């Protein structure tokens, strides 16, 4: 190798290193821009916790709606008004639980979730949840909740109209219908609905229906029928008593 060749090679190597450096800087620049823009979009899109949100009368500090007078065991029920499996649960398992609540054997706490709005591309879960809050504000959450599930549309995603939500309230006998209608129209407890969703997610609830007995998720994954689910729930409650 001549001296000139050697110099040329070193020059080429230096240029190549410079080019690689430029490229790495450009890649890092793209990455930095995406990180900044991505975090900004993420922060804007994530629902904000708003602990000072208006809550319906008588709900727990985490937004859950307590039903029943027993002190324990506490059965947390996570449901979405648009979830067809929740309706199956309501039809087949909930009546037994309701009897246990009635008999003072358990205390139920309802957590109404609203994530199906995203899957179903509507806002019915949130509006129905708000309406249930409006009913709770007048002391009739449980009755209203049952009425909504009883009238869940056969087609998942058909949703609920405001007129339907008001009709349900008339059926269950909400005392002050004007107040209820305003509550629905103004989305009065919208922040409460968001808060309940966030709190449920923070408890690792990713699907509905989910049941917890004294904070422990009831595993019914092995059950193939609603009777099997009911048995699993009853066993979990018996173990906690």
């Amino acid at each position, binding site marked *: 190798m001549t001296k000139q060749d050697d110099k040329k090679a070193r020059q*080429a190597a230096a*240029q*190549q290193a410079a*080019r*690689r450096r*430029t*490229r*790495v800087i*450009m*890649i890092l620049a*793209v*990455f930095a821009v*995406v*990180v900044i823009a*991505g*975090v900004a*979009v*993420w922060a804007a*899109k*994530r*629902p904000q916790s708003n602990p000072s949100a208006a809550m319906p009368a008588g709900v727990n500090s985490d937004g859950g709606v307590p039903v029943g007078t027993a002190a324990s065991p506490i059965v947390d029920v996570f449901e979405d008004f648009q979830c067809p*499996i929740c309706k199956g649960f309501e039809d087949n398992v909930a009546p037994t639980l309701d009897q246990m609540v009635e008999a003072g054997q358990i205390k139920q706490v309802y957590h109404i979730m609203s*994530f199906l709005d*995203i*899957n179903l591309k509507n806002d019915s879960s949130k509006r129905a949840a708000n309406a249930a809050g409006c009913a709770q504000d007048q002391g009739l959450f449980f009755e209203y909740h049952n009425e909504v599930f009883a009238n869940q549309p056969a087609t998942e995603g058909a949703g609920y109209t405001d007129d339907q939500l008001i009709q349900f309230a008339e059926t269950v006998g909400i005392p002050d219908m004007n107040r209820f209608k305003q509550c629905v129209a103004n989305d009065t407890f919208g922040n409460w609905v968001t808060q309940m969703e966030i709190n449920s*997610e*923070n408890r*690792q609830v*990713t*699907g509905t229906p989910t049941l917890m007995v004294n904070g422990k998720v009831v595993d019914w*994954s092995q059950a193939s029928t609603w009777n099997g689910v009911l048995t699993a729930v009853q066993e979990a409650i018996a173990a906690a008593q």
Partner: protein
Amino acid sequence: MMNTERTQWLSTVVRVALAGIMLWAGLAKLLEPDQALRAVQAYRIFSSSIDDIVAIGLPIVEITVGVLLLLGLGTRFAAWVTAGLMVLFIAGVASAWIRGLSIDCGCFGGGGDVPSAGRVGRYLTEIGRDLVFMALAVWLIRFPSSRLSLDRLTDDIAVEIGEDVTNPDETDESS
């Protein structure tokens, strides 16, 4: 040796296609962060705090790689990252499958727990799709040099200033 020019144009097509896939996957997650978080949680692989980081970090990585592929900047590097992501995705779906979870992969937004009907078919489809994407990435790792790319532009500039550029197919310029 294949016809270099044809290979380079083919690499351009593969690069842009893969860029579209990664951008779509990343943007869908970023624009529905609640859904993305739910999808990550549904895999039940990470703890709650890590789920948050994955749900924001994954779309950022996907979009970055998508932009790099679209620009043809650091093509081979971006292709390696893509292939690595696909390995992780396949592992994630396979682990959900093995554990008997019934979830939607959340690959292009969406995701979360879903009814278990048709579960096996869905998991197979998801894994098969990831394998196809991985094949595209492997092509780009093998043939990173493509037309209409920033990588090539910098090489062209290098040629103009009299630098000796060896066959780009054989060099590791883009990494």
